[in-house]
């Protein structure tokens, strides 16, 4: 029999980026907030300090910061006619865990999405007509516009201190920035980072081809910065241990550096760690949540009643929590009915390897997570797709983040896979090779979705999430088109050899690509085709909000952390100013 605690106003399922932000604002608004985090607490000092943190085997290869598959995995298949099997070791995507979540060990790549992204269906159909869309694609508008989110993007960027060069301020294109970016009210909080050599080589090559290189916006800061919460970040030192690692210098925006010290001072907030939420409890109508039940560190079941339940657990876990709790109608790909699990998307990535002359010392180990130089000329809908027969695009850039040798030891085509020839090639090319990244849209398809697995369970006996996904043919055509452009840039950089990139089917879970899982609990204007409304409130259970990239109807060109932050502030605005004053549905469909 679960122990029942005294009710609180708000409970957050997960204390990562979205949970921390929600907790901070709502505790400040006077509500009693409990943050339930399944992982452990951790702090910059002592947990993120060097040299222990600079351990490639432990953090990159063994994935020490990530969710533990022993207890909870995800099952996977490429298509509905296959049997899903457990992803027994994380490779393709790496769900985080622990206080601060994946925002502790992200790369700091801090883009906004584009205007067209939020009205994608309307925009594409207006520009190209429905016929450009392959029949299985299910793109949708978000229900919120870029203009509505802009002040929230601004607020989140200034919380994080993002370093960058604006390209479009209120419609005026700024030299040195990204001319394709969505219009911003003002510049970035801090100037762009120093440009490493690989970025400079890319910039010169891309510029000779007439493209528009710009510095990648970065949440690993170029200089010390104090945010509106009074928290200060330091300057990034380009240590080359960014993604999968926490920052020892307080230089990467994370809940630890930009939110938590203030949150922890607020007596309205209580943090409970090592607690696994099992489900959201509903009343007998099924339309109201009464709170959550979790298993604490010692395995005891605890019921926490709450007026407002915020699912802030990372996209995949958000969707699973809805399914386990019976909130919303699960999606059935055969009938096309139902919404929970629908429009699961990923990110279409890949890129070229550019082998340069051995006189060029690239020094890839001197790098930060977001110190790239890139172009948006092939991003999103920035180019005319009419004659091309696909939608979507990718940004392209030299965005090397490290030279860690277990992960990075490129060899040119024809090199043996092991032995003396391999070793000689590795020694020869390690310091004279640049990786170019292609990173872009993942188009929603009725064939790609999430549901609960019928066979495999987690350590608590609950069904694992089942992922059915392959890259839509549209996205393959798109990435192959961009791959040719990237080869040209490689040669313009002076390459002796270029290994072409581009994505192929089938999608495999065995190679790292991105942790930008998205969709499954998407937002929209119509409860028949979305799980949450434009304020991320569940249509079916109005006192539950599902916050995160699970809300994206499809994934845009860019890394999505800034967009998640903006959406979270947007939802918070609605919760504080509308919902708390009159709890109930905020949108009547």
């Amino acid at each position, binding site marked *: 029999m679960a122990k029942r605690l005294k009710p609180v106003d708000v409970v957050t399922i997960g204390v990562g980026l979205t949970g921390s932000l929600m907790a901070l604002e709502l505790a400040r608004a006077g509500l009693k907030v409990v943050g339930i985090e399944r992982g452990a607490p951790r702090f910059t*000092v002592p947990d993120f300090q060097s040299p222990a943190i600079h351990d490639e085997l432990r953090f990159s290869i063994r994935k020490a910061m990530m969710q533990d598959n022993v207890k909870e995995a995800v099952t996977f298949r490429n298509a509905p006619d296959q049997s899903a099997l457990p992803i027994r070791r994380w490779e393709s995507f790496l769900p985080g865990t622990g206080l601060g979540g994946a925002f502790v060990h992200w790369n700091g790549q801090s883009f906004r999405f584009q205007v067209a992204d939020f009205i994608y269906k309307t925009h594409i159909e207006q520009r190209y007509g429905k016929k450009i869309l392959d029949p299985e694609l299910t793109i949708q508008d978000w229900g919120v516009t870029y203009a509505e989110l802009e002040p929230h993007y601004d607020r989140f960027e200034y919380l994080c201190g993002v370093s960058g060069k604006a390209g479009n301020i209120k419609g005026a294109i700024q030299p040195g920035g990204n001319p394709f970016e969505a219009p911003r009210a003002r510049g970035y909080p801090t100037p762009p980072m120093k440009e490493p050599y690989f970025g400079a080589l890319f910039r010169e090559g891309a510029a000779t081809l007439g493209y528009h290189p710009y510095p990648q916006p970065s949440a690993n800061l170029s200089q010390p910065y104090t945010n509106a919460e009074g928290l200060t970040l330091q*300057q990034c030192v380009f240590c080359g241990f960014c993604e999968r690692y926490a920052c*020892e210098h307080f230089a990467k925006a994370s809940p630890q550096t930009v939110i938590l010290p203030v949150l922890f001072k607020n007596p309205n907030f209580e943090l409970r760690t090592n607690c696994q939420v099992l489900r959201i409890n509903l009343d007998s109508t099924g339309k109201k949540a009464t709170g959550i039940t979790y298993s604490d560190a010692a395995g005891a079941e605890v019921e926490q009643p709450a007026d407002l339940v915020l699912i802030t657990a990372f996209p995949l876990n958000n969707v699973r929590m809805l399914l386990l709790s019976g909130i919303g109608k699960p999606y059935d790909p055969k009938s096309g009915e139902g919404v929970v699990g629908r429009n699961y998307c990923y990110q279409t990535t890949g890129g070229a390897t550019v082998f340069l002359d051995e006189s060029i010392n690239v020094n890839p180990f001197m790098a930060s997570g977001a110190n790239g130089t890139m172009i948006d000329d092939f991003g999103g809908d920035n180019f005319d797709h009419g004659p091309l027969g696909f939608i979507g695009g990718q940004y392209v850039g030299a965005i090397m983040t490290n030279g860690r040798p277990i992960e990075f030891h490129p060899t040119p085509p024809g090199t043996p896979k092991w032995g003396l020839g391999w070793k000689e090639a590795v020694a020869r090319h390690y310091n004279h090779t640049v990786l170019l990244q292609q990173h872009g849209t993942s188009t929603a398809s009725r064939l790609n979705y999430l549901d609960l697995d019928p066979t495999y369970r987690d350590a608590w006996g609950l069904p694992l999430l089942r992922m059915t996904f392959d890259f839509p043919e549209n996205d393959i055509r798109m990435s192959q088109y961009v791959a040719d452009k990237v080869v040209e840039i490689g040669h313009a950089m002076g390459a002796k050899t270029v290994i072409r990139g581009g994505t192929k089917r089938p999608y495999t879970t065995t190679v790292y690509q991105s942790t930008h899982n998205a969709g499954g609990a998407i937002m929209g204007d119509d409860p028949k085709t979305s799980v949450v409304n434009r304020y991320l409130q569940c249509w079916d259970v109005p006192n539950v909000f599902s916050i995160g990239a699970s809300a994206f109807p499809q994934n845009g060109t860019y890394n999505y952390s800034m967009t998640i932050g903006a959406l979270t502030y947007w939802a918070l605005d609605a919760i504080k100013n509308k919902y708390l004053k009159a709890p109930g549905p905020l949108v009547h469909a």
Partner: protein
Amino acid sequence: MSRELTRTLAAAIASVGVVGAMHAHAQSPSRPPDAGRGAVIAAQGVAPRVPACAQCHAFDGASEGSGAFPRIAGQSTYYLGKQMRDFASGVRTDAVMTPIGKALSTEEVADVAAYYATVASPFLPLKSGDPTLVKRGEQLAQIGDESKHLQSCDDCHGPGGAGEPPAIPYLAGQYAHYIAFQLQMWQRGFRKSSPDAMEYIAKRLDDRDVAAVAAYFQQARTATPPAQPKE
């Protein structure tokens, strides 16, 4: 011994290459640096305006232990060269070093740096600081302080404060008084190098923490290079 030799020597020798490549900050020297010539400058200065380095820093770079003059033995050529340029340009100011920095040519700076980078030098038997202060300094050096938003010094200054050549100097064995003084120079805005790192960090240290890291690093030990590499 050979491991330390490897590291410091390789750093010293490489730093020589680095100085050559680093023309963003100074004219390239016209010839490779010459530690032998550097030794002569260290011993007798350059008439008429440059006194012998040895007068303050000792011929072996260990200075005289009061901390009025820093230990420079085994410091990387890159770092030594950069300090001379910083004195010449005003990024650092010191009544004695500024005119010396201005008077030495690019070649002379490279030569002296090459000499002091490889000179053999013992650690002077100085009295240890207050043990609780040293313990606090060790904590800041190896772990940091969450409440003060301070990462560990060793993150940048290397294992045990041995430095991270070429650009980041060793602190192990540096004199407490000198370390404290430089941190105060940053706190007061007189030392303008590394404004976003060292000035920022110095300003977060209170007087006790300054004394603590100073006391800790003075008694910390690292290997020092011999005068000449032996096979």
